[in-house]
């Protein structure tokens, strides 16, 4: 029920703050009364026929980049891991009879 879907403004809002948006290829008319700063080209979150927020695209790109770095190990990470493994193996080997 509290679902809001991203959409892009394809026109400028008219005098009663109605605007055409593109929601994944589907065109709809929504109200920008709640997001009066929204302009053509902006991405907004749409709920029940109203734009409730302009999506902060810069923030989205930055958070994706930050999250991506968590998942993908860098060359240095891999090298450090290999070193640690080698050291552990060497330690285990030295304890062996």
């Amino acid at each position, binding site marked *: *029920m509290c679902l809001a879907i991203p959409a892009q403004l394809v026109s400028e809002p008219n005098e009663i703050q109605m605007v055409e948006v593109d929601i994944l290829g589907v065109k709809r008319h929504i109200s920008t009364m709640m997001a009066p700063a929204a302009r053509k080209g902006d991405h907004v979150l749409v709920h029940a026929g109203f734009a409730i927020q302009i999506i902060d695209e810069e923030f989205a790109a930055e958070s994706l980049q930050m*999250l991506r770095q968590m998942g993908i190990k860098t060359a240095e990470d891999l090298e450090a891991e290999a070193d640690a493994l080698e050291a552990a193996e060497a330690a285990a080997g030295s304890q062996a009879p």
Partner: protein
Amino acid sequence: MSDLSSGFRDPEIARGLVDAIRETAQTPCTLMEVCGTHTMAIAKHGLRGLMPDTINLLSGPGCPVCVTANADIDLAIEIARQPGVVLATFGDMMKVPGSYSSLSAEKADGRDVRVVYSPLDSLSIAEREPDKHVVFLGVGFETTAPTVALTIREAARRELPNWSALSLHKTVPGALRALVNDPEVRVTGFILPGHVSTIIGLEPYRFLAEEYGIPSVITGFEPVDVLQGVWMLAKQLAEGRAEVEIAYGRGVSAEGNPTAVAAMEEAFMPVDAEWRGIGVIPGTGLALRPEFARYDARARVPVTPPAPREIKGCQCGDVLRGVLLPFDCKLFGRGCTPEHPVGPCMVSSEGSCAAYYRYTDYGKD
């Protein structure tokens, strides 16, 4: 845009977050997702199965349709039964059972009940059909209430004589306070609703951290968003912190949407509201202010519905408080299914029972 949405479904990023969660969550914790849209996202993407044994995910009372009391549904039905009334509402409300009937059953019986996409559409119906009285049934939390508030303002601007709103809207923070005060409910962290927070911002949740020491993270709805929210909660718990944080910065700012809040406050005032399973929570309902009485369906279409009754055997109330998992209910899958639902948690597309039934193989993952 496609990159924006697809980025937050990226399996590589999700994998990295799952690893980080496993590393961070060393002590057992119970995290409640408050919002029904989260319940659905978690079930649909199989996120419960990716959690380490230390994390127990619990659904909360965040499905507005599910927490609507029988007496309120009965009231809407009684209004729909009045001659000359068109009852317009969101699709989610149609199949929800009240004490004796549902709106879809009433429609089948010939009442004029219509589904609209936006509350503004109900104004157009009133303009097109001046001999009818159109009642818009408003259900939903702070995400939805401003859309109805602005529709009320628009009805006043157009001076529509034949339109009114029945507000069953509810607000979330007071319900969270009632939950944490309930000795049966044990929650160590809250996954807070993203789009409610788009409107109200961060401040109204501050008491969770400051008075109760419970970490909370405002979370979005893509799989990566949910995992990020869980990871941030695990981090707070591991570091012994309790704060309100935002894991959905592209859609939520700390101050919320002041235009929407102002619209909501202009049209509505807080009143006590009955929540299914929880009871009456002071100040969590939204009634139209006296200035807008001519647009208030309670005044325009006065009715007396029959005394409400509870549905026999349905444990929806305990499921909504997070003290019972859906598959622990005696009726779950045996007499209560999405095809033949007994209670609202199985009816609503966002109800916990419907989500568990549809996606989790009876929750045995």
